[in-house]
């Protein structure tokens, strides 16, 4: 679709706001509807749009699949690591109260970090799924 000027221009205009909106949904998620999962999907949709308009190869150059493997794992580690940190601080798993001097701030920080982990993983996995499906050639011959 490289030759469609309208699509290219609109995509270029719209991708940055999508990413900003993803970040808003991510980090404002504890005051308003949102959170890691939604933000991850919104952010991934920006990259998927880029891939649809400019080609999967261009998207792969921007965000290589190897990087996705690492970020997806890191997201899970951020999530679980927060839980482990709360355990080390003397609470139960994911008991954010112990993360700061008082429970309210603790809950706040804990939620922010955990949701960040969720967002990173969800965005990575969504993009990875897109790469896997879009990168698959139309193989008609049978190979096992």
């Amino acid at each position: 679709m490289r030759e469609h000027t309208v699509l290219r221009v609109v995509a270029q205009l719209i991708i940055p706001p999508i990413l900003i909106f993803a970040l808003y949904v991510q980090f404002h998620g504890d005051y308003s509807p949102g959170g890691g999962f939604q933000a991850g999907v919104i952010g991934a949709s920006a990259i998927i749009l880029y891939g649809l308009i400019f080609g999967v190869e261009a998207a792969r150059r921007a965000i290589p699949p190897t990087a996705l493997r690492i970020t997806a794992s890191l997201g899970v580690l951020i999530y679980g690591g927060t839980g482990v940190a709360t355990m080390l601080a003397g609470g139960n798993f994911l008991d954010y109260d112990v993360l700061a001097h008082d429970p309210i701030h603790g809950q706040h920080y804990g939620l922010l970090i955990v949701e960040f982990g969720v967002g990173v993983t969800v965005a990575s996995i969504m993009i990875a799924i897109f790469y896997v499906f879009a990168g698959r050639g139309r193989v008609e011959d049978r190979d096992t």
Partner: protein
Amino acid sequence: MIAHFVSQFPILVVVVPLLTMPLVVLAHRAFAAWALYLACTWAVFAMACALFARVATHGPIDYAVGGWAPPFGIELVIDSFNAVVLLLVAGMAAINSIYARASLAREIEPERLYLVYALMLACLAGLIGITVTGDAFNLFVFLEISSLSSYALIAMGPKRRALLSSFQYLIMGTVGGTFLLIGVGLAYMMTGTLNMADLATRLPAVFDTRTCQAALAFIVVGLSLKAALFPAHIWLPNAYTYAPSSVTAFIAATSTKVAVYALIRFVFTVFGASYAFEQLPLNQVLLGLSAIAMIAASLAAIFQTDVKRLLAWSSVAQMGYIVTGFALASTAGLSASLVHIVNHGLIKGALFMAVGAMAWRTRTTSINDLAGLGRTMPFTSAAFVVGGLSLIGVPATAGFISKWALLSAILAAGHYLIAALVLIASLLAVIYVGKVVEALYFRPRDAEASNHDAGEAPLAMQIATWALIALNVAIGLHASPELTATGRAAHALIGGGA
């Protein structure tokens, strides 16, 4: 600090595999991935042992995730019943980790090996999560984690037929999972709680409503699909046959057992045996279906030409024994059910490992291709024979203990027809095990095959197989620790349900 660390074990048995999974993905290289897998499963096994010992001496352990007090937060509960299942799952994973490296290296391309280990860890985390959780919705989530990873693991099998087997399992498994979700939703609708203990106290008030009856029906059907209870077993033979050997050994020993555990947990702890078995005719339904499963699946097993498929059909039959036990709704029956959950896990784990070891050498699992292996692979073949004897229920093996417990429970309940069917199914087991043993020992090895397939399987695979065989014999010779643990568990469950 140490005491705090120990008090975190109930969540750590789930979190450690869940967090090792991304580390395995980051490690990427096959050997590093396997080393992490090995370390993780043994750590989980050690924690499971500690939990088991603690439950045996100090009684049930509750753990509030996130510090949120139940029934509002998610609660993990380990009592004498699921401690046994936890020990089985963690133990099978630990022994499997020794076995997996050599076995998987033959069947999967090296660059995809780390994914298999990551998925095995996800599956382990899911299965342990189902076992330890005290929250009905949380159980659904863990069930889907373990199921999704199983679908992917089965699809990694070396033959192309693995793909459709996995897809069929995915469809049936998801329908089962969704049924469970509906059932839990209906129960939630009537009570406003998802905590199992809380549900158990609130449900009796609404027992007469149709919503509550529908909830139990949906949950039983959904979990029966996951447990491959006849007639919802269609996915199982193909899935077990085409999955990689080490995956089959792990899933066959744990996955359906954990689903049955969940079924028992819902029927006895959440709804209560008197509701399910006296107000509703669940026991007649389950007894009938399991009787058919025992006979029909054993007959089907006799006519298989592939050892893995033969053992898979036998698993469907054995599931009949397990369900028969708890459908009796007596302490003895429930105890027999739990004994067979453990023993059948050990038996099938050992047998699938032995078959996997043979397949490692011959690259096939068809009975004819295994002919004469008794001479070239004496240790593996002997392991298969002992495992087979245990499957039949010969004295001095674990299988005998579970058959004995089951038969005495059935006779005590006065179901003589069912007892006769159990015995007939055991005779059928003699035939299908005998069929494989006959091929192994009493038929000559193909001349062309023996030239390049001579020799035993790798030592690690034999050690893992024989470890399970040794457990089988040890339980067969000295069953009292196991029977004490299961008897206590059954008492706790029946007492809690009534």
